[in-house]
């Protein structure tokens, strides 16, 4: 499933906007001129390898880290001049859920609710239900499994019914069942009108639940777009021409409009071109007396694209 394709009326409202966001730590650039936008009702996948600057970006959005340059606007207002914007508009899990080990899950949520104020117990109960923790709500947090901790973290992000939910590596360390549970919750949040910023290095996770993806490397944005667009960008057409000279086939195809690249591997041709020009390619081959046994559009995965884009160049010593 590539993207969830939600398009609700609430999706037009920009809840988070960063502009030229930059952070340097002692000369090292952690985040470099980053612009991103999250709208309510969408999941923005924020992808990057470990150390790419995702958590630093989240820290700046939450006001925990001061940007060296650039601005963070939440619900249209500048965070630098209005610190309460975070508590009023954002719920976040930062790297790992963190709660007080000596208190129960419910009391932890109560403590968070008190810190914000005016959140009734009924809201806490309904959130515990949402994340399937009602039965364990009275048990101490320190007895929870990692999956339960993550679910409690998600419940805590929703306490204030925030316009923006930030999940930083929400499935970190979870077993496959736990990961699936969290992934099931994320699209539901967007369906309910929350904007979701999902920072992750887990590609299939982002691919499954995100509407748009933003890929960073060394703190710099390297590409962004809808999941479908990105996947299409990485697509190609595989052509098998058994019994014919593949180089001759390559010559026949290369001049065709929209064909970006034709390579030969193991006797097959790999054509980077829009997937709907298969019939045009076939005609060009037939005109040269080449009969293809198969012409198959292939979709790359987000993982292919990610690895291609974030592939580190060798740095000379």
């Amino acid at each position: 499933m590539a993207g969830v394709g939600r398009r609700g009326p609430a999706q037009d409202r920009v809840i988070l906007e960063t502009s030229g966001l930059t952070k340097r730590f002692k000369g090292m650039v952690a985040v470099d001129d980053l612009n991103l936008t999250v709208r309510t009702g969408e999941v923005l996948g924020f992808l990057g390898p470990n150390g790419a600057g995702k958590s630093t970006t989240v820290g700046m959005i939450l006001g925990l880290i001061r940007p060296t340059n650039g601005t963070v606007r939440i619900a249209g207002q500048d965070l630098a001049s209005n610190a309460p914007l975070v508590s009023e508009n954002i719920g976040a899990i930062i790297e790992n859920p963190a709660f007080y080990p000596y208190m129960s899950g419910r009391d932890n949520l109560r403590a968070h609710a008190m810190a914000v104020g005016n959140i009734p117990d009924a809201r806490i109960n309904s959130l515990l239900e949402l994340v399937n923790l009602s039965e364990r709500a009275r048990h101490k947090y320190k007895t929870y499994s990692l999956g339960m901790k993550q679910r409690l973290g998600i419940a805590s992000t929703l306490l204030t019914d925030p316009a923006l939910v930030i999940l930083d590596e929400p499935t970190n360390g979870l077993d496959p069942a736990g990961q699936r549970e969290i992934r099931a919750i994320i699209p539901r949040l967007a369906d309910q009108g929350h904007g979701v910023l999902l920072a992750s290095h887990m590609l299939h996770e982002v691919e499954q639940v995100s509407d748009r993806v933003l890929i960073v490397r060394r703190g710099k944005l390297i590409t962004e777009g809808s999941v479908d667009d990105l996947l299409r960008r990485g697509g190609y057409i595989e052509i098998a021409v058994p019994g014919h000279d593949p180089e001759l086939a390559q010559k026949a195809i290369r001049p065709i409009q929209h064909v970006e690249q034709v390579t030969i591997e193991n006797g097959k041709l790999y054509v980077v071109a829009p997937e709907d020009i298969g019939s045009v390619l076939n005609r060009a081959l037939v005109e040269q007396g080449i009969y293809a046994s198969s012409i198959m559009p292939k979709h790359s995965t987000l993982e292919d694209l990610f690895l291609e884009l974030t592939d580190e160049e060798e740095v000379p010593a």
Partner: protein
Amino acid sequence: MMHLLRSELFRLRKRPQAWILALIMVLAVGAFYVALAIAASVISDPASTEESLKLPNIFENGMQIATLLGFILSIVLASGLVGNEYAWNTIRPLLARARSRSALLSAKWITVLLYSVGLYLLGLLATIAFSAGSSAIIGEFESVDATLLSEWAVAFGRVLISQLPYAALAFMMALITRSNAVGIAVGIGLGFLEPAIFGLLGLVTNAFDEVRKFGLEYPSNQLVAMNANTGFGGYGEITTAEAWQAVATLAVWVAIMVGATYYFFNKRDVTSG
């Protein structure tokens, strides 16, 4: 800030450590009076021991124990209140809930103050209860008049003024270093090391005797010694002017510590915890 304070107090109420420290205070004071009562019943000349059990003498006896314990326990709590936020990684979600960093820090300072005052008050109440109980058991109970009550109030004020700076020191150190252990070590360590260090320096030159008066330990112990009425600790007769100088010195230190926490907490990036 009131929301954050409510949350802090709620968490404190749910924290076993807070109750255990309070229990230690009561049990230690109780054990002191039980030991005194037993001693009074077995020694051949119990007059001075019996005198120690009486209510009018609590600040020279049970409250000295409560003061020493309060010094340690309030340091442990104050340091843990901020240091454990980093150890448990709860500081970042907590900050994301706070309307401002200063509001969160203020809520924590007030919590430290309330708990510490409460702890010393508990020590005082336990001392009164055990003193009254044990002196009654041995038939030496003396009632309390208004004059004595007002003396107690002043003496209790001295205890708070002399001891709270150490809790503030522990809190500040835990916040600056993001470490509970450092807060406790510096808070307790300075309390014991400062007189030793100045004692050694005093062997070199008398000039350090004057410097010592502007530290934490000397003015603090001066105030405690006033409660003992015995020239406790070699501080001799302390004049009113000296007492006020001690109070002013400690107030300046506390102001510096509080100011430092706001400066560091507001200035620093929170990249962990």
